[in-house]
């Protein structure tokens, strides 16, 4: 009986257990792994991917996908730069403008997908190319220095209570979006739409609005990450958020256990997925595993982790 119960809970606990095991292994191999400096370093490294993954979770829960987050990062950084240095307006306006650029991209994605029923993978793939092109048009090939605005620099490099600001933003957004997911009708709509969009529509709900909204949020999340990135490296450039960023984000979401088919998932799971990826990266670095091998090990771990959680799900549903 206890065994059965344990098996049933395994699906929910698989990720934390896997992470704990990895941490133990890495700590035994290299005790420095457990130092505060290293752990907060991991958090800092995953914060940007994490912020995007939070909102990507919503998108994927509706059964969609957003491939356009990478270039939005670049465009948002450039937009903030352009407003701050081009108009002399206070930095708050620059940040707001950066955010709204991301939301505009998201709105176009969402509108094409929700109102015209176009496939998300195609729409956002097109947008990936369009936004990158637009960013290059705006920013050209140069790196644009962003050094002399203390608040902007603080966002990417400052610390509060020893932890980087970007980590606080990541955790704050995760907590906020987790409670939106669990406690609002918007949250319930997201997972129901991913489960059976037609049933939700026939229940008299406006599916279009909700679907559109998740892409707006995803664009906004990418803009936040993009501005944090440009703050961290003190520059804005059209080439940031290069090819592959969206795949890292999606991998984190899926690793957390959100189904690519939609309907099932949670922001809290994604947070664990993000952290697990961070721990793997960091541990392999600490152990001095060469980059080529790192990539392969990472791939194997992602697939293996998914296999385990899939197996646990089956046990849970008694199939």
């Amino acid at each position, binding site marked *: 009986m206890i065994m059965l119960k344990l098996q049933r809970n395994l699906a929910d606990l698989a990720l934390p257990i896997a992470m704990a095991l990895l941490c133990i292994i890495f700590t035994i191999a290299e005790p420095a792994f457990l130092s505060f400096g290293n752990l907060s370093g991991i958090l800092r490294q995953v914060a940007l991917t994490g912020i995007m993954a939070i909102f990507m979770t919503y998108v994927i829960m509706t059964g969609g996908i957003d491939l356009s987050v990478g270039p939005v990062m670049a465009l948002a950084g450039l937009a903030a730069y352009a407003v701050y240095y081009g108009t002399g307006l206070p930095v708050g306006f620059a940040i707001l403008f950066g955010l709204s650029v991301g939301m505009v991209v998201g709105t176009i994605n969402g509108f094409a997908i929700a109102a015209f029923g176009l496939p998300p993978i195609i729409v956002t793939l097109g947008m990936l190319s369009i936004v990158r092109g637009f960013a290059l048009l705006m920013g050209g090939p140069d790196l644009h220095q962003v050094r002399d605005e203390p608040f902007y620099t603080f966002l990417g490099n400052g610390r509060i209570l020893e932890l980087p600001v970007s980590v606080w933003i990541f955790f704050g957004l995760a907590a906020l979006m987790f409670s939106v997911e669990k*406690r*609002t*009708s918007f949250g*319930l*709509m997201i997972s129901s739409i991913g489960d*059976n969009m037609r*049933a939700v529509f*026939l229940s*008299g709900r406006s599916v279009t609005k909700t679907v559109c909204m998740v892409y707006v949020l995803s664009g906004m999340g990418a803009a936040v990450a993009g501005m944090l990135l440009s703050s961290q490296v003190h520059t804005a450039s059209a080439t940031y958020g290069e090819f592959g960023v969206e795949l890292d984000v999606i991998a984190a979401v899926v690793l957390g256990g959100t189904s690519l088919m939609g309907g099932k998932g949670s922001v809290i799971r994604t947070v664990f997925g993000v952290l697990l990826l961070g721990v793997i990266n960091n541990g392999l670095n600490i152990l001095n595993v060469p980059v080529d091998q790192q990539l392969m090990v990472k791939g194997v771990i992602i697939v293996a982790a998914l296999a385990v959680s899939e197996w646990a799900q089956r046990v849970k549903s008694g199939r």
Partner: protein
Amino acid sequence: MSGEILLETREVSKRFGNFVALKSASIAVTAGKVIGFVGSNGAGKSTLIKVITGAHAPSSGSVHVRGKEVHKADPALMRALGVACIYQHSSLVATLSVIENVFLGREMRGRLGLVSHKAQRVQLQEIMDDFGIHVDPDVLVSTLTPVKQKEVEILKALVANADVILMDEPTAWLSLSEVSNLHTTIRKLTAANKGVVYISHVLDEVFQICDDITILRDGTMAWTGPEADIDRPKLVNLMVGEALGEASRAAVTSERRPRGTGTVKLATDKLSKQGVFHDVTFEVNAGEILCFAGLIGSRRSEVVKCLFGDDKPTSGTIISKGGVKTFGSPAEAIANGICLVPEDRHTEGLCLSHTTFENTVIPSLVEVTNRGVLMRKDMDAMCTRQITSLNILPPDPAKVVGQMSGGNQQKVLLGKWIEKDPEVLILDEPTVGVDVGAKAEIYAIIRKLRDEGAAVIVVSSDLEEVMTIADRILVFSNGEITTEFDAGEVTNDLLIHAIGGGESA
């Protein structure tokens, strides 16, 4: 050889943890005969089928094929031993042709391991001739009628050399004439000494086609024997117990109220959709159950879709709440007090991986939120209210509806609309794939809504159902209303004639 026992289970039991799903079931499938499995959902039918097809290993007892015990059965082994199962939902690939589907996974190979289309064609033709089943091998499965698709599945089983063919709810999506076509095909199978297992909730069919009947209840075999030794009331009692059996008989004889209170709740005038249905004019009153009877394909679902704002008519009007309305979306129809329980609860009705709780509140999200924030207490109250009043089993708000029986899923679907307090409730085929016990309960719920003053429209292709619950009947044929009856004055034969009469037109 006729009379030979092809497949047998001896004292088969199946336990899941502490739950006994099946208790010492012994059945025998005989060559040349049709055996019917009947029972409510959860009675153990599916478990028995899964043991026979090798999907479940029995906890105790044994399975024998032609007298030999089968050890370590799995689906592939049972298929190889000649046991095939045709499921309620098609397992064909709609975008492939008939012949491609029939040989899928067992392609005949020629030299170089390439598929030999010629050999396949010859074999399929032989089998079609032997059994008198004729389907064009080259048409796409998606273009075939449901009954033809069943025949393709039968052909697929025959090509695989199946001797025992299980059919799980084979007629769930078939019209009356198609059912009799299927039964003719089944007779051809038994004439060729195949053994058929027929699983159905539709008792009329079970009595028509089966030679033997096995009744399952709560995981045990309540009765087994020749069809001639049992009559309908006894069978229903054995299936669902005395009390529910009584209720289901009482339902047939209850009072009829054509035109209800006389207050028109919804009306149409010459409602048409070009090429689909035309000049549909009717009104439904508070306090009556209006049945749309007709054959499958008589466009009744298309009409109700327009009433619910899910589709747009090309001409004619809908009159609701005293005015002419055009509904641009279901939301607008719902705002006018019109609710629809759609035909297919899986694809249109429910979010299957969500819980009873979540499914119940979705249409009422505005009522249970305060500035977008869900109010748990109100939601809990709403869900508990429906679980209690509709007797939803299991009575657990956190149960995922995809894991519930058809009858209980249908109750969840009803419950989510009852919370909206509908003035006009439209139900499209409300009891397809629902067992007898739950059917009686659903009828009682529909009646109660009527008695409380709702106008109810029931679209049904199930004659028994129409005769049981209708106060008034409109017969549809090819997208037109051909006849109207008050339910009190119509007989079975009269109705069959009215429905069938339109078929030739």
